[in-house]
């Protein structure tokens, strides 16, 4: 018990004490969170009317960010596959940081769902036993199950590994192994279920396409790892964690394949929609070309398309992939590209035109953007705090006290 309390304070001290730059960064994030919270208090008081959403477009920026982040949470799995199945050493050693990112992304997802709810205080109604969870009929109920399950798995693996390392012992593969194997299909499931959430609605032809789940997976395998590549470079620069170039280039190579697949699936969808030319092409026409002079999404989706195609070639050629300037450019392109494509570019056209043919142009309002920035800052803060603790444990600098 004594050691438990003492070790708790060791961890707390590690997280709370840092240099000037650390405080500056955390302070900056806290400031953004505060802005978000104050905008949210306004939303809680006046209602979701302060957002750009209306009956015609009933989901917007919040759910777009949610969808993108479910994809990011997959980053861990892309690292896990080569690490444990093929025993690719350089990646195996850094899987932990990917899993911590997954924890962060899922926490942000849950927050985005919470802030989108009209009656967040009644959130418990969705729980089984004490609430009235509509399982298995509602895909949203499935999403609650798989997202929380994924969060639990990643929390357990990360904290178990960190705990073993912090008391100076190797973690037991007999404990982690089965969970890691489980986390692979589970990561696929969080994407698939989130895709099915949209996919299953026959009312929305733009989403009601079987290609949606595969496209979700392909684009998630681009954006998540691209974020990881950038984070790994920061981590190895700011700490003594050694991350081999080889590992980073391997991940970049995997992004090239995923983006190739993503673009192919996009092409398949574009062909089907435009060649068949039924009335169900209205949403995709709205997205890429605008309808009846309404063109809010057009510049965004073309930006995304151009960024994604450029990034694909940058990742594809070993020369640009293994040059950090072009590699980082490609990563940023992919992150922005997928953020648009899997965010507003996916959610909004589902509602435009609406089911009775009305075109309502949705644009997020300032409070909506502030709240969203607040959630992102919260995510950045969680990841910062997790790393502040995990990095010295990982490098062996921080050790808990034990009896021996």
């Amino acid at each position, binding site marked *: 018990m004594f050691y438990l309390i003492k070790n708790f304070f060791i961890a707390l001290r590690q997280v709370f004490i840092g240099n000037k730059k650390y405080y500056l960064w955390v302070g900056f994030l806290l400031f953004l969170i505060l802005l978000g919270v104050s905008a949210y208090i306004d939303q809680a008081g006046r209602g979701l009317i302060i957002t750009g959403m209306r009956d015609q477009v009933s989901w917007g920026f919040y759910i777009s960010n949610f969808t993108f982040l479910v994809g990011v949470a997959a980053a861990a799995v892309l690292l896990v596959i080569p690490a444990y199945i093929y025993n690719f050493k350089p990646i195996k050693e850094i899987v932990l940081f990917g899993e911590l990112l997954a924890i962060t992304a899922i926490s942000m997802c849950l927050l985005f769902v919470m802030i989108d*709810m*009209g009656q967040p*205080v009644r959130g418990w109604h969705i729980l089984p036993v004490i609430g009235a969870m*509509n399982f298995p009929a509602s895909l949203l109920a499935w999403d609650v199950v798989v997202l929380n399950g994924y969060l639990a798995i990643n929390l357990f693996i990360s904290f178990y590994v960190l705990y073993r390392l912090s008391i100076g012992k190797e973690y037991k593969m007999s404990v982690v192994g089965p969970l890691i194997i489980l986390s692979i299909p589970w990561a696929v499931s969080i994407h698939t279920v989130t895709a099915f959430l949209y996919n299953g609605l026959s009312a929305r032809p733009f989403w009601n396409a079987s290609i949606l789940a595969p496209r979700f997976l392909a684009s998630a395998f681009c954006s998540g790892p691209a974020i990881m590549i950038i984070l790994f470079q920061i981590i190895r620069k700011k700490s003594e964690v050694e991350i081999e170039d080889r590992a980073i280039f391997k991940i970049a190579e995997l992004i090239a394949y995923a983006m190739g697949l993503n673009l192919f699936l996009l092409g398949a969808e574009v062909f089907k929609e435009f060649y068949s030319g039924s009335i169900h092409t209205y949403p995709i026409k709205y997205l890429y070309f605008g309808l009846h002079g309404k063109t809010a999404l057009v510049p965004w989706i073309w930006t995304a398309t151009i960024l994604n195609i450029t990034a694909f070639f940058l990742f594809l050629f070993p020369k640009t992939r293994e040059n950090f300037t072009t590699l980082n450019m490609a990563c940023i392109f992919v992150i922005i590209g997928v953020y648009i494509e899997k965010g507003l570019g996916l959610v909004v056209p*589902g509602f435009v035109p609406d*089911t*009775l043919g009305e075109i309502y142009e949705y644009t997020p309002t300032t409070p909506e953007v502030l709240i969203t920035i607040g959630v992102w800052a919260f995510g950045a803060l969680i990841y910062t705090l997790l790393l502040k603790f995990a990095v010295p444990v990982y490098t062996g600098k921080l050790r808990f006290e034990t009896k021996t």
Partner: protein
Amino acid sequence: MNRIKGNRAERKIDRRTFIKGAALGLAAAALPLNKSDASFWEAFFQKHFREMNDEEIKKVLQRLEKEAEQKYKKAVKIGNEKAMPGVLFGYGLDLSRCIGCRRCVYACVEENNQSKDPQIHWITVLRFKKGEKWVDLEESEKYYNPSLVPEKDYFYMPVQCQQCENPPCVRSCPTQATWKEPDGIVVIDYNWCIGCRYCMAACPYGARRFNWSAPNRKPEEINPKTHYLGNRPRYKGVVEKCTFCIQRTRNGRYPACVEACPVGARKFGNLLDPNSEIRYAIENKRVFRLKEDLNTSPKFYYFFAYGV
């Protein structure tokens, strides 16, 4: 599909009481204290409508009536009339008669206590150009505003909740806050809805409305004859929609829109009664249902009494 059926055993209450205690402590820290009067907590812990027994429902109705009276300074009766056996409500709309006057829309708003600011309408009347094509929703106009209707070159089609036999909204709701009653009416428990709006994404008929802000209505405009599952005062952040005027139809009256229609385009009745007007229309007129390809099986029939 729906696991909640009627009232369950006492055991349930014990478990709930325990959880209530545990949750109360947690929630007390997280929630604004100025609201922590008894009524707030009663509302917070209110059970799912179909899990409550008659006694519990009675208490809830009393609390809600009291709240409404405090808010609007007038007595509001919140009823709980149950579905009548042997009744399945169906609706017919004669497109050859509709003149697009929107009297149904306004009668609906008067009857059902929708917010007036921001405006919420449960009925949308769509205008289509004659002589081009048949109902192509993408080409419809919702905001038409001529000085006189009907206009020569147009025809009109009102759309409201189609009360599907196979409702996608019910399937999608993550909390079972919306369901199909035995008389076929799809209802919402406004005290159970969490406001996620998944049902709005799922509805192919644009029938569901969200309270983006707190509903606004002058006390003198409040219709005091209400039903728990229908036109009682609603809250900010919950979904609402047409209920075939459940507060009227379960008491043997016509929906407000049927009574308001000046040309008799709206028909309403019991689909299980072979002698009903609605059955006559379905069997003898050219009827169609909206978006039949989605297999939602609406109980809302459009038809033509005479050619145009």
